[in-house]
């Protein structure tokens, strides 16, 4: 790949303004055929906007887009797609209720006589295409009945199948299992070898270095750096993203959970803040026991689908249980009732911010106050003054960056949205906080802040149950780790045993057993 190769898609001095924000400020980027181009930057750096300009969702206010050597203006996503620019988004943008095959073939269904869709051929073709991605499934089933990983593969297969010259992937691995990530990478490499330009957006540095050739770093709507990725040191890359000096990053920019607390935990005699016994749910949980003591961070490890989120949901009563009970401070909790859990001081920060957490159109203030309303009101009448106080305290303490408490949450970056959610649950003064993937999809800076905050909360005596797919985060953050596999606890690690290797060994050990 030399610079003499003509770019397939090029942005020249692209600008895009939204009311009150300059999202892109003279961004130039060239995508070459046969390269995997990493696009990185903190949330709010302009990545999403740039992608939307490429895909015809937004029209740029200034600059031009050159595609195959000539200027283009895509009016709609359909125009861009027809021209050969395909996108797969972070949240799978397919139609859950339609069948796998119909999702895959939508818009280019094979026609039989009279121009009517030939369903037999459609199903056959869908099966053949998916087999190429290692997906073997009944393509007649509604898409929603499949796991997220498979859905993501269908989205990818769809994006690639339409004769794409450019494939844009926005956080494609955020809901994939390691095995699926491997499949994805082999597909990406194949696309590259076929001369397709791949744009790869991810927060996971390991993945970037594994699969990408070049990188463009965006910061505050401008290009901060562009060049070959292999020549760029990791810390340097982070420094570019954060806009900090390299030294600053080395010394303190990437603060993580402190390790001081470890071993210091005195558990003998004290009652756990929360104890779950024998949580059982058909096909999901097979008798999970978890206990969290005050001031302790317990990590839940395991692969996607091991039952980590389900355990947390079971504890707060958001997942109906077939058997098992939850004790808070020694008293049994009414199962299946989130109200009872919240009243007892158990809060869950859910995994899926968009679907289960924030209410996008409501303001920061309203989102924070939501769960705490009962405690902030008398006889059903809410006290504005009390809310203002609580909101102010948490916006300051969590360093929520918003224009005002009245700004709608949907306008904030992912990291700040996550902090708003965290504030919501802290506002009810919980005794136990369950965090499901608290740093997924948020930028490096906000990630460190959230992690530091969790640490701080534990120091103050809060019991924390931490779920994370990021092994490093688990190891750094948790005092003790329970490893789940197929809905059961298969290992407990504490003290010096809390290492990435031990967790993986624990997962693998059990895996070998069940395979054989």
């Amino acid at each position, binding site marked *: 790949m030399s610079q003499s190769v003509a770019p397939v898609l090029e942005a020249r001095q692209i600008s895009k303004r939204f009311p009150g924000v300059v999202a892109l400020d003279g961004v130039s980027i060239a995508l070459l055929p046969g390269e995997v181009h990493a696009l990185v930057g903190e949330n709010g750096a302009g990545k999403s906007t740039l992608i939307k300009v490429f895909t015809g969702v937004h029209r740029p206010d200034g600059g031009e887009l050159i595609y195959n050597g000539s200027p283009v203006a895509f009016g709609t996503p359909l125009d861009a797609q027809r021209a050969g620019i395909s996108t797969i988004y972070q949240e799978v943008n*397919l*139609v859950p*209720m339609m069948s796998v095959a119909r999702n895959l073939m*939508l818009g280019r*269904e094979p026609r039989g006589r009279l121009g*009517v869709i030939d369903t037999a051929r459609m199903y056959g073709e869908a099966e053949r295409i998916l087999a190429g991605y290692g997906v073997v499934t009944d393509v007649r089933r509604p898409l*929603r009945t*499949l796991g997220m990983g498979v859905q993501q593969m269908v989205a990818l297969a769809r994006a690639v199948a339409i004769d794409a010259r450019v494939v844009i992937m926005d956080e494609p691995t955020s809901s994939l299992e390691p095995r699926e990530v491997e499949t994805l990478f082999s597909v990406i490499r194949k696309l590259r070898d076929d001369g397709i330009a791949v744009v790869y957006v991810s927060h996971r540095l390991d993945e970037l270095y594994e699969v990408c050739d070049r990188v463009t770093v965006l910061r505050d709507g401008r290009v901060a750096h562009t060049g070959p990725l292999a020549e760029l040191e990791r810390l340097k890359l982070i420094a570019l993203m954060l806009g900090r000096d390299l030294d600053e990053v080395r010394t303190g920019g990437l603060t993580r959970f402190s390790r001081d607390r470890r071993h210091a935990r005195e558990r003998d005699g004290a009652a756990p803040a929360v104890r779950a016994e024998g949580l059982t749910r058909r096909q*999901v949980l097979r008798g999970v026991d978890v206990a969290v003591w005050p001031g302790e961070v317990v990590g839940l490890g395991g692969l996607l689908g091991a039952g980590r989120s389900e355990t947390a949901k079971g504890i707060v009563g958001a997942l109906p249980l077939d058997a098992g009970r939850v004790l808070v401070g020694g008293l049994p909790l009414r199962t299946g009732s989130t109200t009872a859990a919240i009243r007892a001081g158990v809060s869950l920060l859910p995994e899926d911010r968009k679907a289960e957490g924030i209410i996008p159109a409501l303001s920061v203030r309203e989102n924070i106050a939501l769960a705490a309303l009962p405690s902030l009101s008398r006889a059903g009448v809410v006290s504005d003054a009390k809310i203002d106080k609580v909101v102010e305290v948490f916006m300051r303490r969590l360093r929520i960056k918003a224009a005002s408490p009245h700004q709608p949450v949907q306008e904030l970056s992912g990291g700040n949205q996550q902090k708003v959610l965290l504030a919501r649950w802290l506002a009810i003064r919980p005794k136990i906080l369950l965090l499901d993937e608290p740093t997924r999809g948020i930028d490096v800076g906000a990630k460190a802040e959230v992690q530091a905050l969790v640490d701080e909360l534990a120091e103050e005596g809060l019991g924390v149950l931490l779920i994370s797919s990021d092994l490093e985060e688990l190891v750094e953050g948790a005092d003790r780790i329970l490893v789940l596999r197929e809905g059961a606890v298969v290992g407990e690690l504490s003290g010096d045993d809390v290492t990435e290797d031990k967790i993986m060994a624990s997962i693998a050990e059990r895996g070998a057993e069940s395979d054989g």
Partner: protein
Amino acid sequence: MTGSPGREQVSRVLQQHGALMVLAALVVVGSVAFDSFATAGNAASVLVSSSFTAIIAIGMTFVIISGGIDLSVGSLFVFGGVLAAYGSQYGLFVALVLPLAACGLVGLLQGLLIARTGMAPFIVTLAGLLGVRGLMLAISNEGATTYLVKDSAFARLGQGGVFGLTWPVYITALLAVAAMVLLQRTAFGQNVYAVGGNEPGAALMGVPVARTKVYVYLMSGLLAGLAGVLNAARLSSGVTILGIGLELDVIAAVVIGGTLLTGGAGGITGTIAGVLLLGVIQSLINQVGNLTSAFQQVVSGLFLALVVVAQRLLGRAQRLG
């Protein structure tokens, strides 16, 4: 976290064909209980009286699957009938084309408003409901003038037939088959499902969202008008007091037929079953004799509630397994 395929399939079949099963069961029960129920005459009467609702319900099925609602169909039904009767004095052609053009235009305008300005279908078609009924009253002298059908060929369209069934029944059957093919086997049909199932996603997948919506409301308007035309031919006059609340009966039939009011799922078979189910309930209550027709509405209402609850439960079963 997926359900076992068997259970998943059972709940899907129930969702799609539940109305048909209940319909079959009711027919069996009615046949056993009442001698006068399972007669050719009664069957024909149920089919004939259901056919007009069915034509409108076909259009409504597309609208609801696309995630919308069309409240204007009752008004378009009566408007189409009055225009057809009025137009029949100029011959068969005018009696057919005038109402279809007018109702199609209303549907098109509603579709454009909904698709291009993003206004809520409920509001746009509520305006249609009020406005079109006003138009109908305006051309019929506040409803006092009932135009009589002057063209005998046109009247035959509503009254003639073969094998004991009138033409509207056959026309409905043809339309239903055409609609099934359109919905299941054409790109347009797939787009309707996609728009109702995930509108932003559909847009990103390159589905022409706005165009799909416009067509859906255009079709609903045309079909409501056609039902009105056929009904005018059957009655030989443009009766001005029809169609009040008809849109709600139609929506009820579509939902009972398994189409999700939230959009994205449903089908024509279910809708036809839903319409016939309401017709059969009516007929059974007539058989009992000493019950008033008000009781039919009570039963229909209960049934609708039952179906919606069942849909919720089935939906949950499909998701959680």
